[in-house]
């Protein structure tokens, strides 16, 4: 109202002789409040970047890239670790589905987010203080069985949510598959130790060498703790199911990999056969290669069906691992009580099976033999079911759970490879986080389903811790810096961007140790190395910042009514003058504005 009263009036001329010869202002034009013409109004929004929607941990990659680019490394690390506890680890081992989602892929190639995440983790390195809890101590305690990525993630998030966490681990060191399954040339043990040490310093209690060995122990934990999270993974190698597979000289790829961490040494000889096409097979093959053996992977389907990551397969081939496709083992050839080779059969691809991949069918009379000093089997891992109480059901080899890993026993949750989900580190982190939120809801008496509606990213099943914190507290440390900015769950696709503002550019490849260096004395040094600052910054600058304002000033520059003003941070839209033409929103390169219908005044 006061605005109305103070509104200036148009200048009044008594005679045409007082007027200028053309129509131009001789006093303020502020009386001409063109905002009354408007039927659409612009506003600033934050939409969900497509990379975030493609990441099982819902990592707000755009947010930390922006901070990282400004050189605010600790703030960037803080933003990244809201969702993902371990940038340094994930920047090494993640198969980076975010990069498949990245809209930059349409214009030269996805941003090398994986390399940047590693750079972020390494830039912080040893020096960073631990992530601080968001809440006061709740007085509730949670037991976690298993210290693999699912267990660690759940422990991390529950600690930040204010709960006391104890992790039970049967091995002598924490880390699970991160330590015993992933070779050091992909993830150095120093980095892993450092990240786990950070959790200890946050207050997570690790009970090592004290696994839960039977169902009774699990029931005790259920009594002693407010909640339990079971994340024992899938640690047992699937048997080959062929004669003489128990002979000396045949071992599981997983045991072989684990032996490096436990200190056991195997004499594998100079001719190693690896059976299988998954990541364990490729890891075992590359490890054997580093020990000097001649290595051949035998896989029963074709390369297109190999479940291992394409990058890993390529690296194995670069290092001289041979891959024989469409070969299935038939029996172990035994000489003097030791496996001396493998009799195999050639296969051809038939009709697609239930996994959608073409089923291998034996070719009659195509037997072929391979000599070996060691045979490593890696055709998949199974769950050790003996610690799970029999009242909890398994289906198709996975523990049956409800939403967010909740089992039939309401205070017992499960996640990671033990449940039905993709067996990757990032999916394990996702499961750990989802269960931590479900447990937090349980301990607060909150309705999980209603909460999930608010925290799920786009149409995915992934959840955002940032949005959960916003639900719990009304604000969030990571979401918009501007309280007027509306947060939208809509995912930004390439066609939502104004691509005219972006130029094509190729991604920077992650720096890689030359192949010859990988196979000499430095065998177990990491294959990938941290990027230089220059390389990193160039890659950071390739981010489109989909759905997020970067203060590029386009809205400010293009507004024909000068109705957009720059603030110290962000912009103000003067609705007294905005005509709602939409130029600002159209010229926004990154879909960080929206036009909405003018509210009807009553």
């Amino acid at each position, binding site marked *: 109202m006061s605005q109305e009263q103070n509104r200036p009036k148009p200048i009044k*001329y008594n005679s045409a002789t007082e007027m*200028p010869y053309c129509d131009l202002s001789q006093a303020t034009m502020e009386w001409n409040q063109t905002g009354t013409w408007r039927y659409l109004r612009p506003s600033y929004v934050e939409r969900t970047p497509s990379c975030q929607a493609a990441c099982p941990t819902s990592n707000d990659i755009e947010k930390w890239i922006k901070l990282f680019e400004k050189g605010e490394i600790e703030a960037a690390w803080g933003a990244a670790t809201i969702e993902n506890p371990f940038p340094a680890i994930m920047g090494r081992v993640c198969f980076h589905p975010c990069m498949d989602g990245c809209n930059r892929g349409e214009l030269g190639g996805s941003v090398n987010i994986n390399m940047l995440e590693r750079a972020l983790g390494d830039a912080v390195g040893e020096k960073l203080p631990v992530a601080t809890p968001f809440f006061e101590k709740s007085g509730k305690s949670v037991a976690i069985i298993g210290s693999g990525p699912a267990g660690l993630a759940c422990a991390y998030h529950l600690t930040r949510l204010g709960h006391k966490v104890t992790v039970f681990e049967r091995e002598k060191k924490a880390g699970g598959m991160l330590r015993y399954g992933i070779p050091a040339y992909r993830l150095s043990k120093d980095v892993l130790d450092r990240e786990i040490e950070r959790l200890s310093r946050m207050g997570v209690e690790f009970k090592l060498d004290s696994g839960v060995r039977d169902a009774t122990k699990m029931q005790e934990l259920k009594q002693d703790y407010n909640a339990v999270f079971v994340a024992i993974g899938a640690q047992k190698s699937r048997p080959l199911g062929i004669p003489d597979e128990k002979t000396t000289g045949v071992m599981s790829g997983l045991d072989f990999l684990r032996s490096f961490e436990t200190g056991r040494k195997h004499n594998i000889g100079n001719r190693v056969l690896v059976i299988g096409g998954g990541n364990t097979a490729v890891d075992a093959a590359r490890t054997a290669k580093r020990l000097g053996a001649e290595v051949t992977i035998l896989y029963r389907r074709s390369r297109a069906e190999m479940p291992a990551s394409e990058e890993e397969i390529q690296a194995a081939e670069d290092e001289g691992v041979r891959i024989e496709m469409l070969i299935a083992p038939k029996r172990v050839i035994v000489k003097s009580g030791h496996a001396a080779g493998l009799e195999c059969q050639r296969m051809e691809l038939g009709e697609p099976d239930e996994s959608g991949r073409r089923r291998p069918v034996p070719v009659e009379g195509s037997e072929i033999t391979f000599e070996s000093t060691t045979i490593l089997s890696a055709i998949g891992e199974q769950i050790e079911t003996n610690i799970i109480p029999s009242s909890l059901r398994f289906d198709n080899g996975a523990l049956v759970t409800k939403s967010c890993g909740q089992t039939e026993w309401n205070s017992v949750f499960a996640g990671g490879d033990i449940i039905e989900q993709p067996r990757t580190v990032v999916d394990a982190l996702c499961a750990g986080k989802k269960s931590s939120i479900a447990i937090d809801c349980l301990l607060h008496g909150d309705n999980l389903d209603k909460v999930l509606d608010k925290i799920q990213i786009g149409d995915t099943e992934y959840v955002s811790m940032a949005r959960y914190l916003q639900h719990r507290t009304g604000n969030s440390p990571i979401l918009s810096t501007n309280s007027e900015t509306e947060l939208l769950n809509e995912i930004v696709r390439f066609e939502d961007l104004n691509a005219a503002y972006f130029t094509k550019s190729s991604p920077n490849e992650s720096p890689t140790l030359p192949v010859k260096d990988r196979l000499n004395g430095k065998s177990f040094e990491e294959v990938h190395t941290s990027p230089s600052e220059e390389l990193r910054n160039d890659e950071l600058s390739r981010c489109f910042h989909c759905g997020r304002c970067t203060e590029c000033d386009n809205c400010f520059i293009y507004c024909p009514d000068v109705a957009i003003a720059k603030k110290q941070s962000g912009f103000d839209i003067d609705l007294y003058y905005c005509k709602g033409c939409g130029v600002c929103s159209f010229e926004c390169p990154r879909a960080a504005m929206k036009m909405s219908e003018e509210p009807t005044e009553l």
Partner: protein
Amino acid sequence: MSKKEVLMGNHATSYGVQLARTQVIAAYPITPQTQIVEELSEICARGDLDAKFIKVESEHSAMAATIAASKAGARAFTATSSQGLALMHELLFWAAYGRCPIVLCNVNRAMAPGWSIWSDQTDSLAQRDTGWIQIYCETNQEVLDNMIMAFKLAETVNLPVMVVYDAFILSHTYEPVEIPDISEVDKFLPPFKPKYKLDPSAPYTFDPLCTPDNYMEFRHIMEEAHEGTKKAYLDVAKDFSKRFKRKYGILELIDAEDADILLVTSGSMTSTTRVAVQQLRKQGEKVGICKLRMFRPFPTEALKDAIGNLNGGHRIEKIAVLDRNISHGGGGIWSKEIKGALFGMSTAPKVFSYHLGLGGRDITPDTIKEAYEHVKNNDQPKETVWIGLKR
């Protein structure tokens, strides 16, 4: 020192614009105008003219850029033709009502469809109500001279000027043209210094919302400027003739002193009519020419004076208006304007109207003579007569 060269009409325009030290040129190519801006772009590229040459994506943008340049205090020029001029239509009002002294060269070309690149005045005459001054040229010398005078006139009265001539007949045809020395032109045409211009240190909102309380006054102020334009043109022309020894008026009378019938012409058809009149006079016909140079503002008083006061009261009986244009449903545009101007004048001649040369059809001395025969042999004008129509 001036020099004489054989120039096509379009290049006469280019050199006129160069001599006027135009500061901003924004144009979009269209036949038959293209060579004007081609030559200007080369003149600018050579550094012979210190102008900002703006490449645009349409005539609409060309006019918009020119308006903005003029508001910023720059002497601005554009050129177009036919459909291009039509595309500028909305912005022609912005230029005129915004009182921007822009000069636009329009090479007359027929409106499509039928798709045509040939001469016809309908394109420019159809813009008569946009508030622009319009000047029609007979020769390439007139083109160059009027281009220079146009800037001076525009800046004197704060109105935009359209200098118009026929496609191909002038635009692409070479004639001897005297090119004045730029130092002389500089004395004739001082730098552009507008009273109001875009200046951050003395800010104005240009062309803002104007309430009904003031709008009519702005129209009246502008109408007075148009009225003043007729005298202003004569003053400019007088100054020009003093310096460059070539005379120009709002209209010109040729062989009119003892004439019973006047042929009223505009543009290049005047030259053809001169030949026809020479031939007719040899046969003893009392015929003359009234050549109109200015269409807007319309020279009503000058026309009345010319037709009413010949040779101390000699009365013209009939005039034949030759229209290379058509306002469908209304007839020839010059003709209508002339009838309106003469209406109520007791000594007014009978006005006969003729369509000829539409869409670039050749106007020959015989075409003119056919019109003359018609006007001579009819007592009363009826409907517009189409000369050379294949019935």
